[in-house]
């Protein structure tokens, strides 16, 4: 039983990271119908940002964290402006290729700037453990879960209660109508990229004590986060997080209880099963337009 809880917690922590990356996929997809395959790389760059601020410049963890998130938000906006906006309106295929290319580019660039070694930063959560009876939970894993929960609450209130958040939902539901309302659609899309990149950065920073920072970390996690987003019903924000946690927990459980090799297969088996039974995903929304 203890093993189970322990595995469950580390699976949930991993799943939260998948969920945060998947959230970035979903936000951008909902607003612009672009699937950003460089989402994992945004997380990776976020990790390097925080390494630069904390590891190289020696700033306090929280200040470095905040600077990295702000830096990534700006990075997301610039990416949207330079790479996505000029090709919006072209076939989906070219946009997908552009984001895949962006991913390769960022991976190589990060390797050139920061090298290809595994990097590490000291965080307040690096070593500590929480003991409840015989149960031992590492602080780094718990910090991921708690931070994800806080982030979810903040995003929930932002999207449901603020004017800009409602405008973002409106834009993602009907961009043309958003233009008619006088919503500055271009600014809204820029801000959505900023939020996606900032969320990815949070994932990167939280993951730093668990997996280290290196230039390929985004590729592996991005490929797991994508099925998480599909599982939750591409286009649903809670779905992305739930999908992420499901994939993370299944992967960890399979790694612990089943023979070697199952770890990477089980999440996809579940994904296939869900898509067969419920093609729209767990939280997929479908509402037809009335004529």
């Amino acid at each position, binding site marked *: 039983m203890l093993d189970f809880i322990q595995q469950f917690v580390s699976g949930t922590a991993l799943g939260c990271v998948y969920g945060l990356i998947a959230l970035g996929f979903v936000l951008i997809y909902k607003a612009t119908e672009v699937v950003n395959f460089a989402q994992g790389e945004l997380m990776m760059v976020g990790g390097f940002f925080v390494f630069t601020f904390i590891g190289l410049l020696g700033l306090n963890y929280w200040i470095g964290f905040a600077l990295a998130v702000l830096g990534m938000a700006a990075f997301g906006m610039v990416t949207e402006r330079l790479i996505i906006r000029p090709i919006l309106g072209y076939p989906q295929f070219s946009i997908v290729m552009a984001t895949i290319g962006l991913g390769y580019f960022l991976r190589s660039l990060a390797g050139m700037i920061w090298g290809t070694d595994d990097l590490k930063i000291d965080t307040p959560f690096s070593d500590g453990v929480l003991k409840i009876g015989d149960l031992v939970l590492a602080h780094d894993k718990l910090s991921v879960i708690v931070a994800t929960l806080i982030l979810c609450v903040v995003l929930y209130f932002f999207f449901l209660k603020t*004017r800009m958040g409602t*405008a973002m*939902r*409106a834009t993602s539901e009907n961009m043309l*109508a958003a233009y*008619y309302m006088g919503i500055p659609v271009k600014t809204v899309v820029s801000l959505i990229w900023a939020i996606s990149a900032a969320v990815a950065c949070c994932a990167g920073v939280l993951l730093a004590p668990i997996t280290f920072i290196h230039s390929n970390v985004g590729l592996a996690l991005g490929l797991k986060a994508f099925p998480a987003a599909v599982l939750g019903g591409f286009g649903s924000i809670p779905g992305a997080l739930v999908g992420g946690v499901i994939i993370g927990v299944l992967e960890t459980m399979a790694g612990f209880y089943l023979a070697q090799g199952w770890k990477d297969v089980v999440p996809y088996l579940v994904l296939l099963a869900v898509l067969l039974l419920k093609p729209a995903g767990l939280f997929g*929304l479908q*509402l037809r337009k*009335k004529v």
Partner: protein
Amino acid sequence: MSDEPILKVSNVESYYGPIMAIRGVSLALPRGKIVTVLGANGAGKTTILKTISGVLDPAKGSVELEGNQIQRMDADKIVRLGLSHVPEGREVFPFLSVRENLQMGAYLRTDKDGVAQDIERVFGYFPRLKERIDQPAGSLSGGEQQMLAISRALMNRPKVLLLDEPSLGLSPLLVKEIFAIIRRVNAEQGVSILLVEQNAKMALETADYGYVLEVGRVVMDDTCEKLLGSKDIQEFYLGASDHGARGERRWKKKKTWR
């Protein structure tokens, strides 16, 4: 000054890719009046509205709102100048509630109290929306969505309202109701309205002045009374067939403007 039209479109040409959708259209909307644009499918009615509201940029010509040149301006800046567009086919935000849809209509306004008052005011026009205030707009019936689309546009307190086919897909009774409210909005708030309609009879009875559009050109314009009396309009847009004294009919009647 008040004699100047509030909205003036001069010699506008717009393209969809290589296709010229409107070929030099000029029209004027006098302050406080309702002007209608009639025409068959593909005549370019919607294109004119899109060009005015800034979703489409004209290749040539100018659009003036209260003396300001607004062609090639971004859509959100034009909305800020007091022009609202009710698009063809409603285009409500389906997953947003009725209230949120209305709030989005007032996106550019910062006076919260005024917005709350205006929400009550549009419920005065469309009481049915009030019952549905917290429902997602996608769950409303077609007629209610059209009411919402009009209300949403009014939330901006526009000086000029562009209405694209408000009767589309609605029952005749609902069409009557909607047009009565369009007249009320015009009379009570002094909003100048540019109305595009396929339902020529309804449009001509509602509007003060009318333009007839064919394949991207204005072929006829006059007061609605005269248009209603015109033989061509009666035959080609109102569907009246010609039973003359001789009781016979030419095999094919030509329009006078061809």
